[in-house]
């Protein structure tokens, strides 16, 4: 196993600059965590509300480093057959058929049962061998020659058993396959785990990861993000819409609008050729920001108070 070396990740400041170049404006926390993860060869567990750019972080790292992004979406019931590896049953069956035909040749000249068994043992056993192994995302990430970015998305949605399955991979970058043995990563991949905090992740998993919590961004940061993602928007409008989104987050909503919603909203306002935020415009486009009818109703009532004063 050898390690990667990227000049793009040489210092916290370079990371910030490089990410920005690729359209991902990150806070100091994020850049430091990525830097440490890279230097310490540790996975990062990224937590935070939905839509703050957790998955995006991994994607951007992949484009930045020009590495393949291997993504494993977790869900309830995900098991090793879908995450790690599976045997190619069809091929194995075919193999047994072929073997049956060849059996006569193999056993030729053998006398007695004991001798036949011995001959059979000498015949190479490839039934359970890498040839019949179907790699799934985790194993695939281990097998990448030049390293990879492994994104284990929404790990909190998976079962607890699956978490234990991850432990070996995360601490040693290796996988044990009972029939074959231990498969070590050719180049240790950079691992991002994301979690929406729907349940607590086990201590054992947390201990193996660096922890990064991405909160909703500050006004300043969010304006920079919007201007990088939607550069066509006017300064004035961007100012207003970010301020409005921030005041929305102050309300008690089922789901607060996240960065991704802010960007979507900025894009839609651009499509509508809006120059200024006004009450009617917001009322018509609020469904881009808020995803629950209750939330929309609650904020429409208070709309006047939330509008930026002009």
């Amino acid at each position, binding site marked *: 196993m050898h390690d990667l070396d990227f000049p793009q990740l040489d210092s*916290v400041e370079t990371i910030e600059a490089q990410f920005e170049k690729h359209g991902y404006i990150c806070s*100091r*926390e994020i850049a*430091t*965590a990525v*830097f*440490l993860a890279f*230097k*310490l060869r*540790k996975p*990062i*567990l990224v*937590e935070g509300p939905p839509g703050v750019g957790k998955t995006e972080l991994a994607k951007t790292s992949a484009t930045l480093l020009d590495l393949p992004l291997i993504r494993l979406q977790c869900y*309830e*019931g995900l*098991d090793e057959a879908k995450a790690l590896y599976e*045997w190619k*049953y069809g091929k*194995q*069956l075919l193999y*047994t*058929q072929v073997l049956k035909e060849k059996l006569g040749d193999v056993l030729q000249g053998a006398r007695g049962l004991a001798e036949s068994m011995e001959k059979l043992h000498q015949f190479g056993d490839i039934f359970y061998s890498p040839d019949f192994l179907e790699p799934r995302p985790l194993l695939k990430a281990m097998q990448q020659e030049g390293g990879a970015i492994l994104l284990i998305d929404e790990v909190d949605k998976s*079962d*607890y*058993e699956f978490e234990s399955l991850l432990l070996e991979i995360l601490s040693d970058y290796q996988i044990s396959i009972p029939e074959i043995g231990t498969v070590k990563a050719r180049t240790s991949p950079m691992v991002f785990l994301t979690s929406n*905090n729907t*349940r*607590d992740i*086990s*201590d054992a998993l*947390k*201990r193996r*990861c*660096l*922890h*990064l*919590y991405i909160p909703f961004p500050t006004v300043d940061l969010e304006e920079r993000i919007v201007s990088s993602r939607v550069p066509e928007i006017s300064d004035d409008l961007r100012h207003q819409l970010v301020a409005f989104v921030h005041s929305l987050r102050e309300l008690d909503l089922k789901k607060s609008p996240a960065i991704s919603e802010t960007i979507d909203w900025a894009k839609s306002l651009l499509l509508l050729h809006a120059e200024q935020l006004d009450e009617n415009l917001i009322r018509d486009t609020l469904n881009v920001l808020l995803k629950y009818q209750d939330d929309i109703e609650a904020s429409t009532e208070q709309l006047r108070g939330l509008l930026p004063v002009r």
Partner: protein
Amino acid sequence: MQSPLVNFIDVLRSHDVRVSPAETLDAMHAMSILGYEDREHLRIGLAATLAKTPREKVIFDACFERYFSHNFDADTAESEQAANKDSSDNSETAEQSEQNQQPGASGAVAGGDSGGDSSGSGGQSDPFDQVDSEDSPALQELLDSQLMQQLRDGEREHLTMDIARAAERSDLGEIRMFTQKGIFTRRILDEMGEDLLRNAVIEAEQTASNLLQPLRQYRDALRELVRDYVEREYLLHAEGRNQQFMEDIIGRTKLNNIEHQYMHRVQDLVRKMARRLAAKHSRKRKVYRRGQLNMTRTIRRGVATDGALFETFWKRTRKDKPQLLAVCDVSGSVAAYAKFLLLFLYSLNEVLPRVRSFAFSSNLGEVSELFEKYPVEQAVEMVNRQYGGATDYGTAFADFTSLALEDINSSTTVIILGDARNNNGDPRLDVLQSIYQRAKQVLWLNPESRRMWGTGDSEMRRYQSACHFAAECGSLKQLERVVDQLLKSTR
């Protein structure tokens, strides 16, 4: 000497942040990569390796502020003081620099801790004790000491370092109680050789010297510095531990005996215990799996039938829906216990299956709805108000069966909380037995100690015969143990 990082992690642990040795190593690696120069880097790096939940992040930030601002704070605060003092002792500034160059003085600096043993050369003409250098050996000795030099020079860094060193020699890290602050302050001052300064002040008082005023100022400034230092260390080291200590005591005390003013602490503790249990038991949640062919087993079996997949195996995990019925006596004598049991059970709602709760004293009613509508604490209060009164277990059980007996089946756990003191009424054991026969398990929690069971009007012995398990639950610790057991057995 322990490294500051290890000390810091110790502080974190005492504030209930779980840091494993492996994480300590990670933090050290992170530090060696990031360096100590940039405080913000340091904070983020340590946070990423040590604090792994949002809750821990908050604690981490608070501790970090306290621990690492330490030296910076001390410096700035002190230099302000020094500035004030210098302005008052303007005449001395020139003398200080003069004394600095004296060979005897520099020898004292190299002399180590207290400087009390420095060979004072009384013959020297020092402007500070021009007045009566022969008559005041104490003053002379003081002037030669390293401590006094630092005080006069305003060498704040060195002074802070000295305080830290003296603190370490006097085991300040062991401080536990706020009453120990005075002792530790005194010990540190002694270690630093404050007695010289004290003696000089006494001497100056006796001789009514004009140096009395500046000497006193130095003495008070030093004392204040040390006191502040001890105060900060106390907050760092003892606060978290005191919290643990309190929790430990509260956990062991009988719930009835806990003073009212500690009740909010008890509630916090219950929630904390619930969180701990939830983390421990949520592991086994959701073990079901949709119907999938277990290919490996099927093929293996197929070998016997010549490769034809004759017999199929399916991946499956048993799944049953446990149900929990909590029946609580809320009459005066056990109300407090019922309150905490309910608080406990409902704090566990993320790991516990459906909980239905019933409250009674004489009549029984279902109170689950209250818990759905209101926050747990509020609901508990409302239950207490609504159902308090004198106990009648017979009627209560009869009510319970008419309400819920049909819902009790082999996956139901019934928890009964009460002291089983029936005021000599009909115990209606037969009703409990019918519940016992239908339910998966019946637990009886009794806040009275086991020795009291069956005495007087207690029907506990009799009821116990119709329970799978009966336990004491006088204190939170016992309650936690029972609930732990419960979680284990319900799933």
